[in-house]
């Protein structure tokens, strides 16, 4: 039996009928068409599908869409303000913080979440904060450099 899910995604309210078994990652991509959230391993190890739910970093493949009912979600599409990229996005560009780009949305969501909690993390704290996000190209050095550059620029209010 389908269930009604009401969620706010990047400030916009969606109300959809979904199967309870639908994962939040598929809800975002296929039901409401926000394909910036990538699907990698789909078993909760790679972090490509990472989003923020009520400000908390989560893997959207480890949540059913029905569990997000009544909650506020931010995806990679919700970070930029108009044409102005988010400081973490700018820093990833400046530091070549991606190779194939597949892990990038999840990495950026994780980096934003880390910097909101800890505006000036050490390298070890950055690596720990991104430990749930895997880069199969192994471009970690540039990713860490990007997060260092963005440190102090993320509004934690």
């Amino acid at each position: 039996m389908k269930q009604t899910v009401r969620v706010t995604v990047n400030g916009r309210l969606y109300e959809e009928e979904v199967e309870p078994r639908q994962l939040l990652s598929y809800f975002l991509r296929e039901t409401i068409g926000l394909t910036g959230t990538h699907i990698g391993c789909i078993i909760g190890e790679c972090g490509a599908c990472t989003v923020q739910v009520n400000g908390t970093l989560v893997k959207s493949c480890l949540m059913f869409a029905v569990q997000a009912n009544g909650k506020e979600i931010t995806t990679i599409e919700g970070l930029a303000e108009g044409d102005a990229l988010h400081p973490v996005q700018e820093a990833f560009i400046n530091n070549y913080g991606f190779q194939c780009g597949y892990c990038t949305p999840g990495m950026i969501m994780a980096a934003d979440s880390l910097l909101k909690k800890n505006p000036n993390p050490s390298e070890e704290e950055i690596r720990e904060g991104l430990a749930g996000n895997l880069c199969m190209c192994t471009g970690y050095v540039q990713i860490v450099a990007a997060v260092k550059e963005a440190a102090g620029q993320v509004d934690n209010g």
Partner: protein
Amino acid sequence: MIPGAFDYHAPASLEEALSLLSANVDDAKVLAGGQSLLPLMKLRLAKPEVIIDIGGLAELNYIREEGDHIAIGALATYTDVAESDLIQNRCPLLAQTAVVVGDVQVRNRGTVGGGLAHADPAEDLPAAILALDAELKAAGPDGERWIPASEFFVTMLTTSLLPEELLTEIRVPARDGYKTSYQKVSRQAAGFAIVGVAACLKESADGVCEDISVAVTGMTDVAFRAEKVEAALRGEKLDDSAIASAAALVTDGVDPIEDVNATPAYRAHLAQVYVERTIQAARAG
């Protein structure tokens, strides 16, 4: 990687959750944070027909001081536990363990009660709650009962909770004045413990061990107390050689599991090394 279909219920109270569970006892799984259950459902290793989502029950989400104990609601997340000032101050072993569970995302969603009730033999927290002599509160249709941590884990993925019971609270004694540590070896991507060791000890000013508990996870189908290690050190002077020879006893009478991560012989070696390392880390603070 799509889970099987199920009927979804999101009860508004513990009472409603318990009656749903009793009514669907053969077909239902309880969903809390879902960080263990969803992977199993996607792999179709679990195919429940009914899901009872207790994730919204605020009455099960708390961490509070109750005299010389700390009460943790089953829905407190690993992040809640790791960041709790109360737990860091009065029972640091729990925070030290919670902070190395999985990764950030898993700690944010995963709940203490869900993880313990799931009873994966590679989970971290079972070692800590065994070392702390925690008690677990089970609520069922006939009321509540307390289960000592030592009687909670039965075998792989099986606890002594009855099918119609829910784990609602974990109660740990405060360990003021104790030195504690949790150390593990794990595979990076998943974070599960190949071997994990929790140690909780009290030593006198001249280094004599007044009390010690050591528990090991990842080694066998359930986490266990390393009683021979404890007995060898209790009342003894804690020096390097005493700790090393006591640590070697952790594998006495233990038959380690074999899986893709480690052979039994390698697990046995890791256990000895990590018991020694964890006791030393606890002493070093």
